[in-house]
């Protein structure tokens, strides 16, 4: 598939269905979308519209039934499990709705986790990058805390720092503000926008919060497993 150098992610004619007992659910139905490098894109849709499924496929944590997904020039279908892990680790950052921090690790150690599997990064460089990520998200003073001592907003900042620490090209965020109050949610979106401008990292996040639509550069609507706008 020919690839425009500015396009970071190309999703072409992707289909995905799930089986729920006796019922076959068509989550994505021939969906296609391109994401430009440096873009800040919000994927908006109702519950069950296929937002999370699309994010999972782009994040290489699920496989499509048909179609092609190309990330930074790499056709995901051609990658084995280890290569996909490598791709996730080096090019994709994840921010989860419920933060997904490891409770027995401190803030600093949680952020360090994805760097530990990059052998070329020395311990000194690791520490420098973790410190920089802590500064970027404004939680440096909490670096020795365990996640259970932090508020929801602080936990999400840790998750953002963990996603940023490997300098990925793409950050995928699945409902990153769903578990936060609206004031904190806006602060988190502000932070993501600021990081998008400062680091030119591509953000692709899904949400069903219509209030956030006006604040992002590109809004994509999804319904019944296809892109509507």
């Amino acid at each position, binding site marked *: 598939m020919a690839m425009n150098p500015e396009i970071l992610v190309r999703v072409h004619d992707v289909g995905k269905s799930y089986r729920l007992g006796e019922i076959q659910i068509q989550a994505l139905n021939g969906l296609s979308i391109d994401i430009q490098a440096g873009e800040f894109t919000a994927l908006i849709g109702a519950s069950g519209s296929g937002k999370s499924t699309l994010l999972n496929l782009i994040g290489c944590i699920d496989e499509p039934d048909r179609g092609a997904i190309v990330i930074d020039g790499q056709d995901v279908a051609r990658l084995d499990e280890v290569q996909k*892990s490598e791709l996730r680790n080096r090019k994709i950052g994840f921010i*989860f709705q419920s933060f997904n921090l490891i409770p027995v690790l401190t803030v600093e150690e949680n952020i360090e986790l994805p760097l*530990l*599997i990059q052998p070329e990064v020395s311990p000194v460089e690791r520490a420098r990058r973790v410190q920089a990520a802590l500064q970027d998200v404004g939680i440096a003073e909490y670096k020795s805390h365990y996640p259970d001592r932090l508020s929801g907003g602080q936990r999400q900042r840790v998750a953002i720092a963990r996603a940023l620490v490997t300098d990925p090209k793409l950050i995928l965020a699945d409902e990153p503000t769903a578990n936060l109050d609206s004031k904190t949610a806006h602060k988190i979106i502000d932070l993501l926008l600021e990081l998008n401008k400062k680091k030119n990292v591509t953000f692709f996040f899904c949400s069903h919060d219509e209030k956030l639509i006006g604040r992002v550069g590109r809004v994509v609507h999804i319904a019944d497993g296809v892109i509507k706008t």
Partner: protein
Amino acid sequence: MNSMLEWRLAARNLKRNPRRTLSTAVALVVAYIGVALLAGHVIRSEKTLKAHTVYVNRVGHVSVYKKGGIDNFDIRPDKYEITETELAALTALLQARSGEVERSGAFLWTVGLLSAGQRTIPVFVEGLEPDLDGFLGAHPRVKQYAEEMTSRRSPVKLSEVVASAPDAISISRGVGELIDRTRDLRQASRADLDVVIAGRTIEGDLNAVNATLATHHTTGTPYLEDMSVIAPLSLARELMATKGSSRVSIFLNENERSAAESFAASLQSAFDAENLDLEALPFTDDRIGLYYTGTMRFLLVMIGFFSVLIFGASALILVNSMTMSIMERSREMGTLRALGYAPDRVRSLFVKEAFWLSLFASVSGIALSEAIGAAIGGAGIYFESAGFLYPLRLRVLIEPWFHATTALVLIGIATGCSAWIVTKTCKERVSTLLLESGAVI
């Protein structure tokens, strides 16, 4: 991963459910202690049996017989004795191996009659060099592992008496009772000490020698306690009218069975090369150490069976615990996978947890089994053991090699079970793992 964080993460994960971790660890520690104490008893028994066979029974680490002599010397001593010439050749061969040999000695035995006053009883007369008798009775391995079998020896040593009385003999306590010579022989009258031993010469003729009762000994086993007479080799040779021997026992510096077996094989090769009609047998050969080999076979089967049973049960406990842990932490596994951890790396995290748990259990098991072993040894508990005349003190000897082996086995079982259980979950789709509940916040 080069970082210590993975090890720290594994260690900290054990604190997530302290009650479950503790109960699993306790099960592993109890399993370790059970196997260690059982093995400690087997190791102690092995050392006692070996000391008994090699030193108390005077078989040596290696016995040398005329070929066929084990079965036939008692019937045809003239044909199956080790001749003076063969003894000289054997002595030369042993001198060439002096670095391995602590001591060796010739033995000559026969069945005869001992007359003391008006009493005459059948006896088994075993002739040996008196200083060899002293060497064997005082050997550190005997003192350490078979003290019960020699502690009832008279303080008077044949080796000391024989200088002034070449015909001095030692009788077992059982023989002493039969001929009414149980009291300290130093207090006995001259008439009570004079005895006559009658027997057959090597050619089958009748012969008799005068002897002097000098001291008591004990065989440590019931088999010969009522018949045993230890005489100087010269007196036995005089009785049998020969300069040959029934057997030569060789005592090695190395006490391990492998050393005995290898020495015997090497000596046998030398016999064959020099056309000597002799055979060298290690004490682990059934023909000369049946009590040792038979008992050890039983003990090893027993400990093998119980070890499999105990470790099997602990493996099941561990599997159950790890399965629960994995079920609770599927979402954490999914998170790690999403961050770029390959399935093998995630699996290694859980394997490290099992490693810490089993390491803790092993260290605790070593400390507690040593403490319990010391307490048992210090409690002065005695038990009757088949084949021994006197009760044996209950002691457990757990050696460093056993601790190292058992700890490795335990750690191997724990990490193996963990790897086995976690492998399937690690290969689940990341999106499926992330849908699970719990474990991350």
